[in-house]
């Protein structure tokens, strides 16, 4: 399976990167943008997708500060 793991800062944890982008967009004339958050995208081929949650807990994300979402990539 081709998988995508989306890693985001946990809700409530200050995300200065998201804030910086949120402030930058109006400067370019884009309005009505809120709640910008910046995370990481990890793409991988796995034989056993059942292992993905443990991979996330142990390495791909730091569960203290990040949450993760596993998405199957069906585009190919």
């Amino acid at each position: 399976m081709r998988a995508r793991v989306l890693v985001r800062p946990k809700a409530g944890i200050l995300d200065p990167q998201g804030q910086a982008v949120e402030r930058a967009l109006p400067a370019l004339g884009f309005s009505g943008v809120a709640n910008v958050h910046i995370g990481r995208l990890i793409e991988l081929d796995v034989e056993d997708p059942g292992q993905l949650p443990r991979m996330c807990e142990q390495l791909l994300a730091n569960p203290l500060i990040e949450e993760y979402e596993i998405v199957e990539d069906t585009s190919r």
Partner: protein
Amino acid sequence: MKFGVVRFPGSCDELDALAAARRVGEAVLLWHAERDLQGVDAVIIPGGFSYGDYLRAGAIARFAPVMEAVAEFARDGGLVLGICNGFQVLCEARLLPGALLPNTSLRFVFRQVELEVADADTPFTCACPPDRRLSIPVKHTTGRYFSPEPVRVVLRYAPGHNPNGSQDDIAGVCNEAGNVFGLMPHPEHAVDPLTGSTDGLSIFASIAQGHVRQHVLA
């Protein structure tokens, strides 16, 4: 008293840590791929960019063979000091609580900071000056300490000196047992009058004094 300073690919402060430790005892380098700690009495995980800081700072170094030995050493009560990237490695390895996040400024900070010793009853701070103030440099981009759980705070940035937005001005914490200590400031860069402050020496002197009390006078 023999210190072991771990060298990962990407470490860059291991020689300063080695030189600082040698002011109070013997010190050897420990290569990341080796499991043998060479009978050292204390381990230092130095600053730098272990394994390029890939994924998250400290996330890959945690799996180095030497870290298995360090984790066992810590479980047996051995003294482990993590400086900057070493602090990040110890948090990722769960030898210390919490995590280090990017500075709120999103900028690399490099300056002298004033610290307050919040806990002088640890093997790493017992020889700190009576006024409990230390002047030590910081240099990092990912130093904003965060922990969802209460922690044993050892060092705090003095009011107005927090360079990274850390929770409760935390600069350094230890584990509950008190034998594993991590801090963002660099005591190994403040051991010679040439660099403006020798306050960092008190961290290394604390470790050496504690060792003497425990093993020589006992």
